[in-house]
């Protein structure tokens, strides 16, 4: 992906964010927002994302939004399970550290995996190093969907897709 | 627009969250380890952010939302910097590979 393409992409995202912040809109918001977004996007492209882009295009943004809803649907029942553990007077905990090797190879996918693990009740991502994900789980049963690889698969179908956005 | 006023609910939630935040102070005080204390500070930060938003809606003043956004960002910064300090044992201007 070319540097100019990256610049346009970053600046567009920043400009949209500026518009969200300044609702209700008027002309001076546009006048200030556009140069600010172009400048910040250019600086970010030149220094923060010099070697690669964040790897987020329109398709992936849609995928992430969809994935967020999917995630909430997974989280709520698991949260109730953890709630039961917390409220149980005997605290039925059996914490274990497990190491999972993920097939995902893209930055965004791995970060999404780590944050999904952290947000899913019962598991907490402790370390991410290459494809090794170290996970602390409250009891081994919580990590089932991680170990059998269905979590990796769900992420790669939502935001990996058949072709990358880059 | 709304014929039902939810303002009392917001005030109630707000007070409930403040009580929760004070309870979390206990963990910050008792520790026993440094990460526990940082964690307690982080938790109180999240609660405070929600309290700020609730305050803004309960008092019908939109500016509290911006305050909440700033507060959330600063609380995030504090947790990351504290974690990094814990990890490397020192703070650093820049990291070099």
């Amino acid at each position, binding site marked *: 992906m070319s540097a100019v393409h990256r610049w346009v992409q*970053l600046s567009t995202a920043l400009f949209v964010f500026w518009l969200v912040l300044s609702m209700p809109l008027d002309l001076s918001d546009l006048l200030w927002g556009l140069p600010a977004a172009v400048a910040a996007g250019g600086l970010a492209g030149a220094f923060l*994302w010099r070697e690669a882009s964040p790897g987020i295009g329109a398709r992936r943004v849609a995928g992430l939004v969809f994935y967020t809803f999917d995630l909430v649907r997974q989280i709520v029942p698991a949260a109730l399970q953890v709630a039961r553990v917390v409220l149980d007077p005997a605290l039925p905990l059996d914490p274990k550290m497990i190491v999972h090797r993920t097939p995902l190879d893209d930055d965004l996918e791995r*970060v999404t995996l780590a944050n999904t693990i952290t947000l899913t009740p019962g598991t907490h991502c402790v370390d991410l190093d290459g494809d090794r994900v170290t996970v602390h789980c409250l009891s081994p049963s919580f990590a089932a969907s991680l170990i059998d690889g269905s979590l990796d698969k769900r992420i790669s179908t939502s935001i990996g897709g058949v072709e990358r956005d880059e | 627009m709304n014929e039902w006023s939810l303002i009392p609910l917001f005030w109630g939630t707000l007070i409930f969250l403040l009580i929760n935040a004070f309870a979390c*102070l206990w963990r910050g005080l008792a520790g026993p380890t440094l990460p526990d204390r940082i964690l307690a500070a982080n938790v109180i930060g999240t609660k405070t952010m929600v309290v700020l938003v609730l305050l803004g809606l309960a008092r019908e003043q939109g500016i509290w939302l911006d305050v909440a956004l*700033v507060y959330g960002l600063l609380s995030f910064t504090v947790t990351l910097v504290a974690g990094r300090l814990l*990890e490397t044992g020192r703070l650093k201007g820049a*990291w070099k590979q």
Partner: protein
Amino acid sequence: MNRRRAGRILTAVLIAALAVPLMYGMVQLPAPGHADAPAHTNVSAGYIERGAELGGSENLVTGVLLNFRALDTFGEVLVIFTAWLAVAAVAGTASNAERDPVPPSPVVDYVIRLLGPFIAIFALFVIVNGHVLPGGGFQGGVLLGAMLILLSLVMDAETVARAVSARSWIWLRATGVLVFAMVAVMGLPLAGYLFGLPDEPGLRQVLTVALELGIGIGGGAVLAGLFFAIAGADRS
């Protein structure tokens, strides 16, 4: 041991004793701009009547800060800059960062790189809208400083050096002072006295935003500079 425990309990009680009246006071705060508020019944009646017209800003506080009391605000900006000078003189500027044994987590790295530009945009938004909304230069500066500190956790030293050289850091930190001094001197030809703002509303708004930008950028750079200086001094 017992004394330590007693000290802790005393501290907790004192903090609670401080927090309760503070929270009570915050709930009691009059709504901003409310005419019955004690602060607004005396001198400020005049400000309220003519402040927007004379101050050159839709937000009264900004008008007062940047126009009526511009000299005070200039003093504050100077104090912040001097604070950095003093800390830098005592602690050094920590420009020669050495190798750090533990690389940052890839998750933290990615998220900070992703959020960084958005934090910068939010900071600019707060700065530019300082003349309409509460907020402005100082608050935006805090956000910029937070962003610089966050970025410093994940950026390598060479990229930082390439982005901003040690020499330009000093100019960045002095931005607030310089912009203020410039606007103050420009007041002489434009309005006939130091810190005078011209009558033309458009020009007036541009100057106000320039002041806010100067305070914001200078303040942010100074805050980050304080953090770096103290962080550098800690590793002996």
